[in-house]
């Protein structure tokens, strides 16, 4: 592989663009294909479907085997709430390869000292969260327990292609949340996308254990449900 191709692959991934690297396994010659130039590619149909599914693999062509490797963007996790659970969840998600952003307008919670090495915004989601950036490679969890902070980002996520939306709170709390969001115009189908109570049911009790349950549920959503 030429070093310039390697650089192009890495910069596309940084820009959160899905790209395919198409390598002729007989000659070793490789090319980068993205949505801009896929229509001109001889393997157009195959590449389009793989860019969508995220599945890499070998295709047989008249001149031999070709390997199509799909690079989907790194998964992103937006955590609403700089709380104790988030302090455990953020590094755990980073270890799993996710880009993590923590957002909380309460400056006492959103401090660099509590979230070393994590992107942190001490702002209201209403000001800092851009709906366009909630793409299908993004998971959002809302764990402040405060409707004033949580409801807006949950609503934005429900109107986006986010692959996972989780919200902290008991069944009762979630029931009230659904009433509020429903009154604000969200449909039953949309509300059903929220994982609540949040996390896989492993009996998690401590903040750290809850973080494990949430991370596991995000992985499940990505590996068993998402279409990439």
């Amino acid at each position, binding site marked *: 592989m030429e070093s310039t191709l390697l650089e192009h692959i890495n910069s596309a991934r940084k820009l959160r663009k899905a790209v395919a690297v198409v390598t002729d396994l007989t000659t070793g010659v490789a090319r980068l294909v993205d949505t801009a130039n896929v229509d001109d590619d001889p393997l157009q149909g195959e590449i389009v479907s793989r860019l969508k599914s995220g599945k890499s693999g070998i295709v047989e062509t008249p001149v031999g085997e070709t390997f199509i490797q799909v690079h989907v963007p790194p998964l992103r996790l937006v955590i609403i709430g700089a709380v104790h659970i988030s302090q455990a969840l953020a590094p755990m998600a980073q270890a799993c390869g996710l880009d993590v952003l923590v957002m909380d307008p309460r400056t006492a919670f959103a401090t660099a000292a509590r979230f070393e090495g994590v992107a942190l915004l001490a702002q209201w989601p209403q000001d800092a969260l851009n709906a366009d*950036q909630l793409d299908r490679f993004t998971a959002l969890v809302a764990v402040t327990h405060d409707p004033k902070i949580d409801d807006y980002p949950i609503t934005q996520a429900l109107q986006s292609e986010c692959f996972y939306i989780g919200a902290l709170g008991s069944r009762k709390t979630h029931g009230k949340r659904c009433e509020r969001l429903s009154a604000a115009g969200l449909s039953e189908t949309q509300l059903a996308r929220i994982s609540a109570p949040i996390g896989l049911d492993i009996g998690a009790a401590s903040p750290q254990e809850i973080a494990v349950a949430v991370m596991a549920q995000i992985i499940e959503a990505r590996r068993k449900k998402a279409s990439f």
Partner: protein
Amino acid sequence: MSMTASDENTTNPLADPLEIAQQWHANGRSVAIATVVETWGSAPRQVGSHLVIDGEGNFEGSVSGGCVEGAVVFEAVEAIETGKPKMLEFGVADETAWEVGLSCGGRIRVYVEPVTV
């Protein structure tokens, strides 16, 4: 929401073999990339997984659960020297022959290519 400025500080570069390959190459090290291109049966890493190797035999990433990396590193160092890509195939380990293989019973093909200027 802006993540661009802080991404480089917060994303663990060690989690990403292709970033490492680019860094190593930029630092003047000779580099090869090994990629799982096909799997059969119970394979430890999925298609598209990478191991990156430098000319000294240092490596990051994985193409199996640690079963065949040693052999891939050996072949990659050779690929760096010749400048030519190669295809490797690993199957079930033959324990009596102390052969390199996958104890999980799967089979994988690994494409090894040097990073060229």
